[in-house]
């Protein structure tokens, strides 16, 4: 059983895996993590930034779908620009999107490491780059590519940028607000990865998130998969414990509303990136 199949099996069982099965499609930094923001909607893959960077097949695959930006066969716009979908076997499709152009249009079979194109300005991405995504055909859901990619050499802990409580559109930022009216609140968590070298922050939900309220585990989640159910795309944890989380169009994690009664409450947060670096924080709040 190869590492790739092991990864699939592990994923199906809901077990985090570090098995390397695919190669990074480019020697470029990750700019947006799985579930991170992309012009108002969470992205189903990772965005790698850079201009003129070679984009290569992460594994050998057969072309399933190729969409040119200005294809005249359909009036449906291609929001993901030039897009290639390769079937690698085992029911896993790899998607290369927001490509300015394709190196070999019409090619049907790609060996591993074959040149797919070069990154550049395309689609709605805020910076030059491209998206790499994996779709699990059997389960009908997107998979965080990091599950199948080699672990990056990252020693920087993720940043907890802001944690807030939200009720009826009103926001209380933890750290700024010591006293809050009692009631039902969603917990909104904004995190980011610290980029490599001169790269800025990498926006997106953390790989692992745990929230405790007064010592009770409210949610423990991993952003491993994304699935559209009943017309809504949700990035949710493999069901482990607590409530499901929702990732909004800004890449923020929203923990469903829970009730806070009068008195003191302690909210503890632990986030971890895929490399295992973690950061925690705690806030003591007074609900009146």
């Amino acid at each position, binding site marked *: 059983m190869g590492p790739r199949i092991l990864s699939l099996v592990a994923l199906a069982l809901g077990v985090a895996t570090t098995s390397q099965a695919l190669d990074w499609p480019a020697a470029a930094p990750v700019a947006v993590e799985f579930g991170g923001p992309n*012009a108002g*909607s969470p992205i189903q893959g990772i965005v790698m930034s850079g201009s003129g960077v070679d984009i290569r097949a992460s594994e050998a695959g057969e072309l399933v779908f*190729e969409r040119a930006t200005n294809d005249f*066969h359909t009036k449906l716009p*291609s*929001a993901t620009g030039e897009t290639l979908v390769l079937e690698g076997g085992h029911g896993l499709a790899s*998607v290369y999107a927001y490509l300015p152009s394709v190196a070999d249009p019409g090619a049907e079979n790609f060996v591993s490491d074959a040149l797919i194109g070069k990154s550049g300005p395309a689609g709605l991405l805020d910076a030059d780059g491209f998206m790499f995504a994996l779709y699990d055909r059997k389960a*009908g859901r997107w998979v965080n590519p990091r599950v199948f990619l080699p672990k990056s050499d990252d020693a920087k802990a993720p940043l907890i940028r802001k944690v807030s409580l939200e009720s009826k559109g009103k926001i209380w930022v933890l750290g700024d607000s010591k006293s809050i009216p009692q009631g039902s609140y969603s917990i909104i968590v904004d995190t980011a990865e610290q980029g490599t070298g001169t790269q800025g922050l990498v926006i997106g939900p953390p790989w692992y998130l745990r929230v405790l309220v007064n010592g009770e585990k409210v949610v423990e989640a991993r952003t491993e998969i994304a699935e559209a159910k009943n*017309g*809504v795309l949700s990035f949710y944890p493999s069901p482990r414990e607590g409530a499901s989380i929702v990732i909004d169009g800004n890449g923020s994690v929203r923990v469903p509303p829970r009730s806070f009664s009068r008195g003191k409450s302690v909210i503890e947060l632990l986030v971890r990136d895929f490399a295992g670096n973690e950061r925690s924080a705690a806030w003591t709040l007074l609900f009146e």
Partner: protein
Amino acid sequence: MEEKTKVRITVAVTSLIGIAYFFLCAVPLPRQLVLKPRWDNAVPDSYPYAAGSSAPVNSLHSFQIGERYGFFDGNSGLVFAATRGYGVSVSDSGYVAWEMKPGLLQFKDPRGVVLFTSPASGYPFMDGARRFVIAANQERISEFDASGALLWERDFPSFVTAFASNAAITVIGTMDGRLFGIDRSGKEILSFAPGGSRIDCVYGCAVSPDGRNIAATTGLDKQRVIVLEKREEAYRVTWHRWTDSDFRRPVSMAFTPDGKELVFETTGGLGVYDTATRRERVISMQDPVVSSAAITGRDMLLALERGGRPSIVAASYGGLGYFRFPLVADDSTLVSEGNAIFLGIAKGDSTSLLRLDFVEE
């Protein structure tokens, strides 16, 4: 002498019979169908609506040829033209332009009056009188009414690869080979996975004007065309055919305006499926077809080929070729209305629009 007289009489009788046959049994020549030019207009970079005719806004036709787009009145010609920036979607009900990284998405009517600014981010597109936005992730589609109110918004399971709509139904095909039907309220009225191929994917879809039939080109190895028909409760597959095609890109397919035929791209030409007889024919084409148009009341389908040299091809639904004529054009477009066809041609910096009428004479 007698012999000579006999010959004369024979010649005279034969001549008389011939003359009598000519007058008595004459059949008038059938009227011939010819294409007559009615008007032609140059399409400038910019032609403000105010300079156009006073034709009612809801009677205008849209066009997009190369970089230029706009509207024309079938009787009088061009009423509005503009040059697109990064992208534009045009339908007879209006237009919406966008940039590669768009800011405001303004849906306008054919006069250029802003109907609303979309609250949704993404790429806008119009289909008939319907206005949609597909999100940056190619997975979420939103529909708005003419005032900008959100009618529905939905995430599909994977990339949206195929789209079709009529006045009441939107049909969506996805990268993982599923087909969805959504009504105007956003309710799912069809969810179907055609399957049957080694790899599932939907490459094209179509819905008939009355919503009775839905069609799709699906799968790889083998690829097939399926037609679903609405029964009392749900849509059911009523016809399918494995094809020799191996399309791995979007595929054109559409029902004719009367809904009687499905016209779809297939190997070597256009497939025509008759919804009444459930029979299929293939009209052979030399190059990929950009667009096709049915001529009302005639057994005639016009297709615009885009090959090394674009051509207009006319054929019967049975596959009988009527004519083919090449165009001197870099880009072209074809629209039909009744017995009229409107042809747009772009060559270099020059763009023109002309009306040709099928006339019997």
